[in-house]
């Protein structure tokens, strides 16, 4: 659509794999990549949503879009996805790990199954995808990995303990892997966004945080754009939003116990307010 802009940013992306592609942020990444003229391979749970998105991206942006439904908590499903993606021998030059899950609530309110799902998807799924996709990389181009961590990855977070710790894992893992693979032309970027208005529950939660929610929230479209630009420059960490960068910097100066106290106080208050307004959400 705008050739000058496209040419400036064209870095020879052959194909981009996006997990969690039909969720709010995944969709924003898919549309942003397609609008840059990059071919896509999408995955998520529901085949109907993948097909709908793929049809429209092909039509609007004239790029190649393949998809395969998969459940990334399941090792067999992950292996099958990599097999399918390898099928036509078209190489990849980027992997965007968006798929992730949280079941918000105190640790003992969550079922063991829910806890396992968080670890399996956020940690195991992401690591397996990185290993699998690097075996399919385009040898003639740099390879970009974007891992969607979270601002939660910087803090111990009561009420989101397992989730925040899984994101901390991704954050540290990304930084270390980036160093390991730098010489091979692989960049690893950890995206650490605050809450994003991706579905009615998230919007509800943002609303319950009042002014703070308004100020820390960034739209998925600008996050996707900013993150892709950062990944092309090989940046290690992306924190969208000025206030979020400040909060992260301020948080890093305090002892972890204090941060947990503060975050716990804020989240519990927001939850009380939210469930007072809408008891059904509890």
């Amino acid at each position, binding site marked *: *659509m705008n050739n000058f802009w496209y040419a400036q940013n064209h870095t020879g992306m052959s194909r981009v794999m996006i997990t969690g592609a039909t969720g709010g942020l995944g969709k924003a990444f898919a549309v942003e990549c397609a609008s840059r003229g990059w071919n896509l391979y999408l995955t998520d749970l529901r085949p109907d949503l993948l097909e709908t998105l793929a049809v429209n991206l092909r039509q*609007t942006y004239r790029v190649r879009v393949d998809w395969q439904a998969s459940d990334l908590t399941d090792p067999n499903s992950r292996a099958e996805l990599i097999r399918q993606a390898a099928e036509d021998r078209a190489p990849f030059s980027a992997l965007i790990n968006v798929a992730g899950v949280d079941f918000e609530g105190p640790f003992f309110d969550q079922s063991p199954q829910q806890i396992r799902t968080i670890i399996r998807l956020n940690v195991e799924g992401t690591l397996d995808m990185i290993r699998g996709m690097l075996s399919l990389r385009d040898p003639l181009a740099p390879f970009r990995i974007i891992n969607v961590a979270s601002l939660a990855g910087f803090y111990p977070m009561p009420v989101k303990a397992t989730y925040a710790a899984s994101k901390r894992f991704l954050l540290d893992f990304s930084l270390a892997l980036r160093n390991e693979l730098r010489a091979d032309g692989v960049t690893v970027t950890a995206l650490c966004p605050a809450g994003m*208005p991706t579905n009615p529950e998230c919007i509800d939660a*943002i*609303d319950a945080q009042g002014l703070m929610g*308004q100020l820390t929230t960034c739209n998925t*479209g600008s996050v996707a754009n900013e993150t892709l630009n950062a990944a092309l420059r090989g940046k290690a960490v992306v924190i969208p939003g000025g206030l979020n960068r400040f909060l992260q910097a301020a948080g890093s100066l305090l002892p972890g116990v204090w941060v947990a106290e503060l975050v716990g106080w804020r989240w519990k208050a927001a939850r009380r307010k939210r469930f007072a307004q809408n008891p059904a959400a509890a």
Partner: protein
Amino acid sequence: MTGATSGIGLATAEMLARRGANLIGIGRSEDRCRKTEARLAALQPQASIHYFAADLSLQSQVRAAAEKIRASLRTDGINGLDGLVNNAGTFTYWLALTAEGFETQWAVNHLAPFILTLELLPLLQAASGRVVTVSSDSHYAGRMHWDDLQLRRAYNGLHAYENTKLANVLFTREFNRRLGGRSGVKAFAVDPGLVKTEIGFKGTPALVRWVWNLRRSGGVSPEVPAGDIVSLLGEPSVLQSREVYWKGGKPKKSSRRAQDDIDALRLWVVSEKMVGINQDRQHE
């Protein structure tokens, strides 16, 4: 009539029903559709009044709605449409992409009227019908960002809204330029003014609801723009005019950007690509 279960759409539907018009309404909620259909039918028992539910943010559902309209006219033995009112509009504070990957306001406010009008064009041609698209004076602040039309990369709900309302005027302009003469169908864009509707309350944060509640208190009732729409649909005199943008039954000067023929053409071509229609080819 799209968006025919609340606000301006409901007021217009009611006005048309009272005058004995046969009417097909589109609404988002099945439940509200059934209720409104029953209420309007009671108002005018001899008219044929049908309501269909569709989520106009999805192209697939806009096309399905067009199919239902065609089928319903066939059943009633009616072989044309005298008017199409593209009234449905939405405001979304946070960026939300539809399952088809489009920004929601762009999809509902611009792409849906674009698709529906082209889908129903043969029926409108059969009756030398009119197309009325509800724009807004917020189009004066709108502009086409050609490298990011849907404002995905720098989203602001209000700016995105303004741009879609500018798109409504540009669409109407280009429709008349390319199809006005040969199709016998004429299109108008309406400025409803500030109207007491629920648009700012639907799925918006508390702050937005508060602002809209304050702002709309200075607005007129939906019957005012409804009267304008009804007169554009029926009044013979307006057919002689070459004006695109109307308020209070009179032409109104639209923004400078809304009078740009190149932009109007460009928007049409980009929109065709977004919805997978090639209108020139269809007419060859």
